[in-house]
Every structure is written in C-alpha cells, then in structure tokens.
C-alpha cells in the first residue's frame, strides 16, 4: 500500500463555505502536480448548511489509486494529518448538524499531526480553548483576522493561499511549495496569490502541544438510542416548558428559565456573545422577545440573562436594545466558560462592572462578512498590521 494523506478543514457554514471548498480543491490539485491522486468533498451531513453552523471539508490524497480507495472506503477519514480551522472560535469545539455532541477541534488529528488555526490570538489562547488530547500534536497559527469568504461574498484576503503555503511547509511529502504555487496560478490566474503562499511558507512555524495542555473539560456526549427505544411515528416528545430561577444572593425564587434541549447545545455556532449591563437595563423585554433561540432567562427581578448554553451569537439582542452599551457583542475568544453573567453580577456588582468594561474595550465586535460598502477597505490597515507582526 502507498501513502495516504488526509486533511480536514473545519469552517463556519455558509460564511466560509467557498473558502473551505477552494482550499480542499487546491490541496488535491497541488498534490496531483506530483503524480498523486485525490478527492475533495464536503461532509454531506452538514448540508444544508446554515449561517455559522460548524461544518467540514476534506481532502484525501494518495500516492496511488488503490491506496486512495482505502481512504474513500470510509464516509470520512477517522484520522487526519492536518486539521485546518479557519475560525479560532471553533477551537472550543465543533457540533455540526451531522452529529450529536461537542467534538474537540483536534479530535481527528493523528499523533504528531498539525492543527493550523487562523487567529489574531497567540498559542496560549488557542491551547486554552482546545480540548486536551492523549497524544502530543503540533499547533501552527496563521496570523490574521478570521476570513468570512462564503457563499454570498468572497473576500479574497489570501487566507486560502496562505494556508496552502503553510501546508507545504508542515507536510512536505504531500506537496512542495512549487507544486502548490503552480496549482494556485492554474486555478486563480494570480501571481500575487502564489507570492502570498511563498511568504506564508517562509513564516510558518509550529509548537508542540503536550497531553497535559489544553481545556481539561470532558466534552458532553450523546448516546444514540436503539431503534426499539425510540418513539414511533417520527414524533419527538417535548421537554417541559421551564421553571423559576433562584437568586444566588437573596434566594428569591421567581422569573422564568425555559428548559432546553439537553442533547443539542448549539453554542459552538457562536463567534461572539452578548455581554449585558444589568445596571443600565430598562427591562424593555426586546432582547427576550426578539432572540430567535429563546436564550434569555428571566431573572426573579425581571432582568434578562443571556444563557450561554443556548445563545448562537447572532447579535439580534444588541441590535434591538435601545440602551447604549447595555447589550454588547464581544468576540467569543474572550471567554473561557458559559457561566451566568447575571449570577456573577449578583455576587459582585463592582467586580462585574470592571469585567464588563474590560470585555467591551479589549475586543470589538466581529462581523460575518460585509455590512456596508467600503467596510473591507476599512479593515485593510488592521489586517496589514497583523500580517506584519512576527
């Protein structure tokens, strides 16, 4: 048997769909320049994709046809040489529409395999988000803002070719820089993109992540029932409507917390989350009313606490809130857990205020693509600055 390579691309559905498929396609084409063969495909179960839902693309490459068949005889690879994560917030875990339960971002990595992440963050922040793995693996960070190059708009920020150049460095047996540059020029007829790949090739480095590093949490799992254990008629029994909440300080009992699906958490869809200023909230109900995921819990005193088990990070609450900076969307990389902001505020109002101001100041909102004409041009200086950082 010859050699089999597997590359996985984890991306945000719709927003990064085109980016992911362009990369997995170019991987196969570059390897083909060296006489290898391969296939490129999206995980079918992820379809139909929805905005922001985690999804996967794969490139399988082999040195000969029979070995390629070995790789194709599985629905998708059970282990991969390289995992590419084009949105750093996905390092917290992946739950697509194709499976149940949260999967660590590094789950499929072979021992010694490499996780490539596009991020503005340093390795400490990425390692803190990713779950611990039994064997060591390499982490390589491609500095940059997260590219939203999706189905509707393709933001050609060279994320694709920079990652391709990085792969040539990390896995030289798959393809050389020369082959990938040839594939890039063939595909996109753009010499500048080939230059970007070379630059990325030169700058790519990686560090080793040890088994004792990373998020120690055991990701929640879901056991699929046997056919005779399932209800008949494709009817799903509802969960109870909800219950009252407890105030951790006054022990008041009231408000309303809706019960939520215990088997589908949804929060890995989130790239940003609302932080709430409970001191300025006027209890107008708009966030609670407009949230498409009913993520707001009503506290005993009638405030609205965005529950992070249920929030998908869409930003509607921020948009409808009539009070300045009462609800603010903050980059998800800023947070390390899903705890209740209201409980933190109840326990320590001053401490919460400092925390809140820090969050709002340190990271501006993220956007999924473009909101207005000229927005991309405005972002170029910031991207340049990041790109020039060592």
């Amino acid at each position, binding site marked *: 048997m010859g050699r089999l390579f597997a590359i996985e691309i984890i991306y945000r559905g719709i927003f990064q769909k085109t980016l992911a498929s362009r990369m997995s396609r170019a991987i196969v084409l570059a390897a083909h320049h060296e006489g290898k063969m391969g296939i490129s495909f999206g995980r079918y*179960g992820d379809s139909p994709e929805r905005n922001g839902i985690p999804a996967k693309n794969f490139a399988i490459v082999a040195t000969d046809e029979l070995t390629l068949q070995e790789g194709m005889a599985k629905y998708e690879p059970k282990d991969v040489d390289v995992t590419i994560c084009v949105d750093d917030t996905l390092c917290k875990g992946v739950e697509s*529409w*194709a*499976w*149940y339960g949260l999967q660590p971002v590094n789950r499929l990595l072979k021992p010694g395999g490499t996780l490539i992440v596009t991020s503005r963050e340093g390795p400490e922040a990425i390692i803190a988000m990713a779950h611990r793995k039994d064997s060591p693996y390499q982490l390589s960070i491609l500095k940059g803002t997260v590219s939203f190059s999706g189905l509707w708009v393709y933001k050609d920020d060279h994320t694709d070719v920079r990652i391709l150049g990085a792969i040539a460095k990390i896995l030289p047996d798959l393809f050389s820089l020369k082959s990938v540059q040839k594939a890039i020029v063939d595909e996109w007829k753009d010499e500048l993109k080939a230059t970007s790949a070379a630059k990325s090739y030169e700058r790519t480095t990686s560090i080793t992540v040890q088994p004792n590093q990373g998020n120690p949490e055991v990701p929640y799992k879901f056991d*699929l*029932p*046997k*056919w*005779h254990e*399932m*209800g*008949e*008629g*494709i*009817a*799903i*029994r*509802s969960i109870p409507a909800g219950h009252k909440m407890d105030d951790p300080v006054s022990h008041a009992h009231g408000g309303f917390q809706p019960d939520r699906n215990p088997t589908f958490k949804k929060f890995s869809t989130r790239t940003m989350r609302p932080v709430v200023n409970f001191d300025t909230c006027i209890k107008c109900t708009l966030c609670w009313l407009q949230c498409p995921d009913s993520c707001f819990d009503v506290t005993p005193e009638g405030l609205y606490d965005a529950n992070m088990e249920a929030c998908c990070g869409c930003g509607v609450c921020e948009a409808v809130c009539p009070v300045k900076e009462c609800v603010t969307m903050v980059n998800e990389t800023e947070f390390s857990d899903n705890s209740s902001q209201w409980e933190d505020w109840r326990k320590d109002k001053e401490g919460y205020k400092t925390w809140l101001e820090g969050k709002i100041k340190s990271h501006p909102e993220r956007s999924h693509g473009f909101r207005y004409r000229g927005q991309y041009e405005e972002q170029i200086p910031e991207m340049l600055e990041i790109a020039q950082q060592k």
Partner: protein
Amino acid sequence: MAVATVIEDQRKTEETALITGSEAIAVACKLADVDVITAYPIRPYDTVMQYVCKLVANGEMDCEFIVAEGEHSQFEIVKHASACGARVFCGSSGVGWMYAMEALTVTPALRIPMIAMVGNRALDDPGAFGVEHNDALTVRDLGWQLVWVDNAQEALDTALIAYRVAEDRRVFLPCAISCDGAFLTHSQALVKIPLQEKVNEFLPPYNRGDLLLHPDNPITVAPQGNEDWVMEIRRQNYAAMERSYTVIKEAYADFERIFGRSYGNPFFEEYMTDDADIVLMGMGTLSISVKVAIRQMRKEGKRVGFVRMRWFRPFAAEELAKSLQRFAAIGVIDRDYSFGSPYLGGVLAGEVRHALYPGPGKKPPVVDFICGLGGREVTVPDVEKMADAVYNAADGKAQPLTQWIGLRE
C-alpha cells in the same frame, strides 16, 4: 359469485341493498363513523365521494367533508387530521393517486392509519379509464398496506377490517383498498349492510395515544433527521408491517365471530384447489371469469384451481409458498406491468416467484400472463388459453415465461 360464505344466517336482522363497490365503501365510512373525508374528483374513485356527499347531505352521516384543490392536498389534509386523532378516509385513481405521491410517501413514515380507496385505473398516457393495478402498486414498498377485493360485499367488509387493522396501535400504517375501476366501482350488487351495533363491537374508537398531536400532548412531528436516525425509523416501520400480518388474522377472526361471515384465509382466497393439478393466480375482479372458466374446464377433466391474492402488503409469502408447492405449475395473471423487470413479467408474478424461492420444498414453474390492461375484458377463452400454457409448463414444454393474452397480434 360472492366469496363470502355464510356460516350463520343473519340476514333477517341485516338489510340488503343494491349498491356499487364504491357505494359499499361509502357505507362502510358511515358505519365506521369516519370524522374527516377529503375528496378530489377523478374517475372511477369519484363515485365514492358522490355517495359520501349524498350520505352527508341526507343527514345520514356526520363528518367533515372537504373537497381539496388537488390530490396532493387531499391526502395531506387527512394525514394531518389523523395525526390530530380523527378517523379519516380518502382515495383516488390512476394519475390522481400519482399526483398525491409525495403525501403518500410521508403517510406511512408518520404512522398515519389512513384508509384510502383506490379505484384502479390505467395510468396516463393514453388517458384511459379502465382498470390496471399499476396505480396502487406504486406504493408497494413504502409501508402502505394494500388489499384487493373482488365484490361489493367484500369491499364493505374489508373497509371495516382495514380500519380495525390500520388503527391498531401495533400497526398504525395506512391501508389502500383497491377496487377495479368499472367492474367493481360502477356495478351494483346486492350487499348486506351490517348492523351498526355490531360494527361498534368490531371497531373500537381510534386512539392516537402518545402520538396525538394536541396542545395537551406536546410533540414535534416529522423533524429533519440525518443518517444517524433514518435506518432506525425505517426499522420501526418494518416492525409495524411485520406485526400487521398478525393483526390482520386477529381482525378476520373477530369479524367472523361478530358478523358471522367468513373469508377463510384472510390473505388469499383459494378456489377449487384441493384436487388441482395447476393453479391460476390473480387479484381483483378477473376472479369472476377465471372461476367460470375453471368450472367449464373441469367438465373437460382439467383440474384447474385459482388463488386470488387479497392482501398484497403485507404479503403472506410463507403461507402462499406452502400452498403453491402442491401444484405442478402456476400461472399468474397480472393486470399490471413492470417493464424491464426479471423475465419482463408483471408485478404479481415477480412477487410469487420471490415467495417461492427461499422455501424448502418444491418450486413449481411460474408462467406470467399480462392480461386485461386498461380495462380490457378477461374472457373465459383467455383463461382457458392461459390454463393450457400452465399445463405445458407443468409438462416441461419450452415457452416464454411472460405471455401477453388477449392482445391483437
């Protein structure tokens, strides 16, 4: 003519009416106190909706009677009504049944015990009105229970039995009752109308139980599911169809006990098979000419029998195989076609060969006859010709495995 044999004469208490097969089904709907009936006209099924209209207009029947804007909506409306706990009825014919196809596929998947009457009609084109069985047979793989009847009394009785079986919690699958267009839907015969109190005894109210779509029983029906769920869902329907076989037997036994009419083996009727050398097989009203021909042939010393399939789904394969192994050869009369199928035969012949294959014992040769398409008459001489071909098969003489009978050639 009628297959029903009277064990205990109860006609003194039952009235007899001269009605068509369609009207018999409408009467069954009345007796079963159906809650929601949807309709959309197409021949020959439309005779049922006419009779139901009349019953409603005359104040003899109380139901929601909804004329939809097409067959797809017609079947969707009753599907939803059934999910909400209503006993439902609808039906169609030929291309009308085809137009409802998407609704027909989701009905068994959601375990809806809908009863439908298919007035069997040739599929277009050409736009013909006469009987062919291909319309109902298109759903044979989807979880619909399928039954063919050959007279108006059997149509009425089978409709009551169909409600009893379909609405049994162990089954919860739809059932289509096939009535040959014209021969059964449009011809009047004397039918004993069962007493309401006996129907009530036979047919318990429909209880949707834990699957009831109601605010007091909050459930989500028919969500999206990926490959983690689909096989398990299909396996549940497989089990339901498997159980249907037993429930059908129970229902016929109870029917006989309560109404005093016996249909013998529920799944297929055997006619003069005890001493038969060979048998013919078929579904629906062609049974009449076959039986007449058999009586004539027996005068000439040909010991021919007949097996009429009633229940096509579930298909009583083991029982049928056991019975058929007694004969030297089998001739299957297909009032349908399955172009390009094995040996280019019809649907029923394929099923019969399939039923025989795994069994231990003998595997008699099966000759297939495509006959009576588009409502063409199946004549007594046609049947005799077929019996001769089956005798030839029994003697090992070479001949085509599929033969077109009654064709101008």
